């Protein structure tokens, strides 16, 4: 059995190596390409336009990609664990819809011009937080969190928010519509160090906190009632994990917009490779999500360079195709 734990360490090391390789490739390529030697020289000199590109644009983007990819993938794996439903992903719960509505309202009412550009992610987060609050409290009855009800309420809130966004888009100026659409399609293009720090710290804290519940998530694979039979306080576990997953999604979406498929595809693919034990799945999902986003961002930046494609287009297309291929080859049920 100890062999299994060694295998897990080996898997994590491999993913770390892949992460470093992805980061290296991503930092090297773009409108201007750098060799490995050039990278070292530029970072050592700390001067020039190349240093500004690396230090202010590419490295923060990679860090943000890792944090957002990790957070969305982690959120997906948590929600799929709670609901025992492989089709649940962070956006199913209406959190992205709430964030989109918050941002759309901020754009339509020009709140950014009053409170500054920082208000856009803040209003996204407020929208996400209100959604989390609504879904959570509407699902509680007799002090018990009904997870099936929560899922349905989440889906409905998502529809309502999408309709509200469409309403705003159909009644506002073309310029505002463009801003909303651009935000919804998602992008890692932010140089705000403070926001990047917040997302990074939140996603790492989310991973640590969730990992403490890895055994409880493992027990939930048997269903809520059987997990209770094994002594798991399912009510507390589900509440804590739902809030963690929602906050991770809310924070990520409010900073980078709606980047789809990560929370659905990455956990599934990693489950096929590493199995269903959450003690390995949580870490590998976090790292895998980060690697996936970093590489998708590289493609989105370079495929029609000097222009940039929305990253959501790449995650959906690449992720979807790889996932269908992996699923058709998989023997796993």
């Amino acid at each position, binding site marked *: 059995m100890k062999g299994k734990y060694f295998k897990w360490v080996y898997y994590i090391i491999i993913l770390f190596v892949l992460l470093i390789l992805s980061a290296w490739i991503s930092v090297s390529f773009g409108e201007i390409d750098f060799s490995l030697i050039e990278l070292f020289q530029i970072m050592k000199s700390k001067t020039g336009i190349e240093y500004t590109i690396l230090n202010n644009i590419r490295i923060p983007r990679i860090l943000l990609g890792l944090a957002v990819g990790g957070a969305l993938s982690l959120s997906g794996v948590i929600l799929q664990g709670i609901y025992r439903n492989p089709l649940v992903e962070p956006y199913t719960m209406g959190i992205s819809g709430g964030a989109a509505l918050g941002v759309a309202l901020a754009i339509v009412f020009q709140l950014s011009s009053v409170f500054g550009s920082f208000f856009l992610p803040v209003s996204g987060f407020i929208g996400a937080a209100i959604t989390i609050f609504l879904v959570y409290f509407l699902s509680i009855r007799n002090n018990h969190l009904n997870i099936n009800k929560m899922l349905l309420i989440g889906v409905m809130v998502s529809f309502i928010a999408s309709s509200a966004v469409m309403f705003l888009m159909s009644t506002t100026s073309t310029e505002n519509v463009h801003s909303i659409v651009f935000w919804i399609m998602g992008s890692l293009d932010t140089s705000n160090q403070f926001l990047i720090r917040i997302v990074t710290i939140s996603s790492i804290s989310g991973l640590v906190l969730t990992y403490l519940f890895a055994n409880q998530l493992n027990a939930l694979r048997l269903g809520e*009632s*059987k997990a209770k039979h094994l002594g798991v306080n399912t009510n507390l576990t589900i509440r804590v994990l739902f809030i963690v997953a929602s906050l991770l999604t809310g924070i990520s979406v409010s900073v980078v917009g709606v980047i789809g498929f990560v929370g659905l595809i990455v956990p599934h693919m990693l489950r096929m490779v590493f199995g269903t034990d959450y003690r390995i799945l949580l870490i590998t999902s976090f790292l895998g999500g980060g690697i996936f986003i970093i590489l998708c961002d590289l493609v989105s930046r370079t495929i029609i360079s000097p222009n940039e494609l929305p990253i959501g287009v790449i995650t959906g297309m690449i992720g979807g195709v790889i996932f269908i291929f992996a699923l058709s080859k998989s023997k796993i049920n």
Partner: protein
Amino acid sequence: MLVVSDLRSGYANKFHLKEISLKVDKGSLTGIVGPNGSGKTTLFMTLTGELGIQNGKVIIDGKDISALSPREKAHKIAIVTQNTEVFDISVEDYVLMGRLPYKKPFQLFEKAKDFALANKFMKLTGVFEYKKKLMTELSGGEQQLAAIARALCQEPELLLLDEPTSHLDIAHQLSVLNLIQKLNADLGLTVLMIIHDLNLASEYCDHIAMMHKGSIHTKGIPEDVLNYKNIEFVYDTVVITQTNPLSKKPAIFLVSDKVLAQNKK
């Protein structure tokens, strides 16, 4: 071991147990029988803590069950249900999940003792040779044996079984019940099981409680409970009871309406 006194529980404005009292002695193998809708599952869900107690008490090993935390309850009671939840998990990992109630709050990995117990109970239940196989690769009977091994890993004082043989063919039914009888005899494990098949209940249980419309109609040793009067009253059907020539326990024969009509003539 388990004392249920004046227990009332159930669903709001729906079915209720009516002041049930039941005593399960330490080391006994007790069966709960009764027709569909008689309250067996409601009683079971109340004992497992899934349904709240409205009135009365359930005392296990001298302690009120409603005062126990989920973890403390899992130390005392282990449960095997009729449906074994299976997914892509190895038999060994599945059985090791029974050690979860003994893990400290932030203990993520199993200790040597956990592996030793899992191996012991996998051997005892006959699934050790499949330990590296996935649960989804096992037959229904083998899955149920693995579920029993997982329950034993909880080192419970009481094993609750909810129709453990309902989906199995007769060979697997017997292998599961023989195992339960052996665990009861060898480990002194107290067993309380819901069982639909009256012949199996008669053959394997020391004591039987027969439920009817939310209360216990009668209880006692199989010879006293499984007579045609009780069965016909509770199940509202005609049966013939005889004695199994080998075990000397009651054996129940069912009669179709056609045969019954022919014999009435």
